[in-house]
């Protein structure tokens, strides 16, 4: 397998404060990888650095193209969909408009129409509410919408920032099931940042553990889930 995304010696800064201290990792095409770590470890910053939403140095390569000098919107147009923390829902617009916005960089009108139908098949609840203002959806429904919006890009790589945040355990299970399905059937490479380590390790095939801006552990998701020391010191369960 070839590496789809290569991150080397990534350092990121918020003003004078350094949040990432030379992070390196790679994602294989077709993989479902999770990035674990405690609050403030730098998980969100890593995702934001990939999309050039925070000042950073180091090399990030996506399918051979260097991302460092590209603007966020141009990185997205390469096929990297980013579901941000807090979902980034356009709350004053309808569900359907949110989906349309996900595909705003695409030109193939027929493809967009059929993709919207596909999303309604993945997430039937969105079909029931397609004329409703997105802000009136429940948290779980908004997360589904955020994932669907990201998929409307027809991404090659999807970055998800704490998709389980604030959701009921049952809803989280549903959501993760769908993510697994998208990964297998639509061949979308996925990088998911999670605090819910147990669930994320069940879903993922590869895992990185991050602490204070550095990768401290990487490996097969099952091995990491079974490693007693890792669980106690980094994952806290």
């Amino acid at each position, binding site marked *: 397998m070839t590496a789809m995304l290569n991150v080397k010696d990534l350092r990121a800064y918020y003003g004078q404060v350094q949040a990432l201290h030379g992070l390196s990792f790679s994602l294989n095409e077709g993989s479902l990888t999770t990035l674990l770590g405690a609050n403030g470890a730098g998980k969100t910053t890593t995702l934001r650095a990939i*999309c050039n939403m925070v000042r950073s140095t180091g090399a990030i390569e996506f399918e051979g193209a260097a991302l460092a000098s590209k603007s966020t919107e141009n990185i997205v147009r390469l096929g990297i969909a980013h579901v941000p923390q807090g979902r980034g829902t356009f709350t004053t617009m309808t569900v359907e408009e949110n989906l349309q*916005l996900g595909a705003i*960089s695409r030109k193939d009108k027929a493809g967009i129409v059929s993709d919207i139908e596909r999303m309604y098949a993945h997430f039937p609840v969105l079909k029931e509410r397609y004329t409703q203002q997105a802000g009136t959806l429940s948290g779980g429904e908004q997360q589904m919408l955020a994932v669907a919006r990201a998929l409307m890009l027809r991404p090659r790589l999807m970055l998800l920032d704490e998709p389980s945040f604030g959701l009921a355990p049952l809803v989280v299970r549903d959501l993760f099931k769908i993510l697994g399905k998208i990964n297998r059937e639509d061949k979308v490479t996925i990088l998911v940042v999670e605090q819910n380590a147990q669930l994320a390790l069940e879903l993922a095939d590869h895992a990185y553990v991050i602490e204070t801006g550095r990768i401290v552990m990487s490996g097969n998701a099952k091995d990491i889930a079974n490693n007693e020391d890792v669980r106690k010191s980094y994952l806290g369960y």
Partner: protein
Amino acid sequence: MELFINKVLAGISTGAIYACMALAVVMIYQAIDHLNFAQGEMAMFSTFISWQLMQWGVPYWWAFLLTIAISFAGGILIERLLFKPLAKAPVLTNVAGFTALFAIVNSVAGLIWDFTIKQYPTPFGSSPFLGSQLISTHQAGMIGVTLLMLLGLYFFFQFTRIGLAMRAAAALPESARLVGINTSWMIALGWGMASAIGAVAGILIAPVVFLEPNMMGGVLVYGFAAAVLGGLTSPLGAVVGGFLMGVFENLAGTYIPAVGNELKLPIALALIIIVLVFKPAGLFGRAIVKRV
């Protein structure tokens, strides 16, 4: 009763202009969170351009369309040259930028076309509209052209992809970038459209207030009042606020003896203050809650 209807209709026709100015102000406010003090001067300059074109023999409607196109390009140019570099600057720097733009546009217009008051033609004539003494053909034309433009804008924002992208960029810039929207160009486009809307307002009101570099001063104050009344976050509110403002101004000038024509403008200012005190978000706006 006839006087009342007459005043209401006249109010609606000037209200249409206030609505345009308020809408232009709101469009830029939505995009960059600042009030464009120079919106009126930009509209005045556009009106002069159309006048100049007509002086050179261009027919009215061609001059009208050409001026809209020139104003659109000019608005984009002003954003790219002046306000894009100021995007991350503090509020006061932006205020200074707008004030400078106001002064520059006003002076340049005076320099090119001098400060004497000029007649401005109307294609509608000023005879009674449909034989009725209540409203003139020009007033009816002002209302008609404005409504057509508002309808066009509504369809643009509701049913085109670029309109959707502009709404998204104004509502949530970061999310908009994450779906691949170039938010910086959406802001420039907003400036272009605001400038073009202002041009329409200027051209329509010029036969009433006459053409001169300070013609839009009062109009912009009413436009601001209308935008505040309707809510700075709501384009619909700005339009409704504009029409209400026009009617209110005319009725107050007629029926409140102390007001008269001279005190109409302070009424607009008083209205701004009253709205800000009792309903800061305006009639249609949403309260802006910021997490800190």
